[in-house]
């Protein structure tokens, strides 16, 4: 049942991707100012949105993992202490919440979500960083500029690559804690990087949607754009889910190996 549902999801994704491609290349009209090259927006912007969404998922997974850890630690430390009534109620509620967050492998699931979203996010961020210069070379005449959004995306990419490196170089359960801490640090850094670069210099086009009054897209382009947003989002989720299950499997395998080593 699960496999059928997943296969259906994958099939719908592929159809959406084909439909999105058709819309982007054949249906959307040529841009009056930029010509054909503007069509990169159908890939660039959806990839960026998906990358940012997945880095946010990484933050959620990291916070979940650390919170569950913390509450377990606190309960281990203070579990035997009897608190006065109101405080005792607060503590018991916290521990119940912690038990739920830890329970039935949710803590490991949070870690799997964190690693899967970081990896897939880095891939999408790479696509953004590749398609951006392709467009900029035509539109601006240069491949790259140290503008707020470009620099932020590049730093974001660097941070999450370093996150993946940390996961590679550290081992065992402590790696999960260290990675969760770094995930929180990385997410904190993003707004600061963005602000600092905005004060520095900005060349990236102002937001096309929700920007100034003269911003916006021709209605004939909006539909292809939205189709591509949907297609790339669903495609990203498909890869994310696949990567998540692979990580869960390898976690279970590692746990099984550890158990066998103990029993031997």
């Amino acid at each position, binding site marked *: 049942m699960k496999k059928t549902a997943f296969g259906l999801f994958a099939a719908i994704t592929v159809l959406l991707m084909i439909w999105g491609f058709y819309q982007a290349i054949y249906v959307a009209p040529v841009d009056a100012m930029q010509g054909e090259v503007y069509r990169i927006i159908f890939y660039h912007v959806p990839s960026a949105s998906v990358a940012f969404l997945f880095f946010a998922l990484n933050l959620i997974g990291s916070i979940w993992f*650390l919170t569950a*850890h*913390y509450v377990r*630690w606190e309960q281990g430390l203070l579990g035997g202490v009897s608190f006065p009534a109101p405080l005792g109620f607060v503590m018991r509620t916290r521990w119940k919440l912690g038990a739920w967050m830890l329970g039935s492998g949710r803590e490991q699931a949070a870690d799997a979500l964190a690693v899967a979203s970081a990896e897939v996010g880095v891939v999408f961020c790479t696509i953004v960083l590749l398609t951006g210069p392709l467009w900029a070379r035509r539109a601006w005449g240069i491949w790259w500029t140290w503008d707020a959004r470009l620099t932020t995306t590049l*730093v974001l990419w*660097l*941070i999450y690559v*370093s996150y993946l*490196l*940390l996961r590679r*170089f*550290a*081992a065992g*359960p*402590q*790696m999960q*804690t*260290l990675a*969760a*801490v*770094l995930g*929180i*640090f*990385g997410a*904190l*850094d993003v707004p*600061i*990087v963005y*602000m*600092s*670069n905005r*004060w*520095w210099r900005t060349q990236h086009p102002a937001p096309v949607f929700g920007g100034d009054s003269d911003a916006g897209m021709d209605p004939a382009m909006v539909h292809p754009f939205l189709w591509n947003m949907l297609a790339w989002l669903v495609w990203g989720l498909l890869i994310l889910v696949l990567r998540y299950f692979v990580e869960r499997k390898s976690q279970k395998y590692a746990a099984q190996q550890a158990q066998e080593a103990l029993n031997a």
Partner: protein
Amino acid sequence: MPRALWTHLVKDLRIEWRSLDALISMLFFSGLVVVLFSIAFDPRGEFAQRIAGGVLCVATMFASVSALNQSWAREIRHQVLDAQRMAPSPGAELFFAKVLANFLFVTIVQVVLAPFFFVFYNLHIAGQAWLLALVLPLGTWALVSNGIFFAALSIRTRNRELLLSLILFPIFIPALLAMVQATTAILTGESDPNLWIKLLFGYDIIFTTVSLLLFDFVFHAE
């Protein structure tokens, strides 16, 4: 001042006073970076004025990495780190003591390096010189507090020496940008460094707070 923090701080300062390991290696290394940059870029006149701030900050950054690594690596010998993890004192105090000690070391390096810097790059300060006494400590604090945190994090891994730079530098980028921009603004006197000083303040406050809050997770991770 909490007692554990004081004990750790005095211990770290005493070790450094007796060996001078971190200071000497940092001084020599940052001096080398300054010389290498001068050879690579041939700084003269206006150009020297423009890149000096960046060179100083990057030189400090590279030099401090070795000291930051050493700061935890010396605790590994004789299982000192494990003993400290079992000690009933908050890890945050140990962290803060190490930040204070290394902040002092890096500041000393900067103070000693500054005259050479002015000589090699023929600098003159066109802006308000006293602001440098605000910018450099703020930037150094950002570097050292994040650096000590990530050194504690990467000390538990393979490739620890390399990993510290790989993790620290991306996170440090906004602070480095602010530090370089502020220093350059002061040296050239062309723009106002206030915005960058504010950014450094904000960065320091945010990251020091988060480091203090999350340090126990890293310290007791298993």
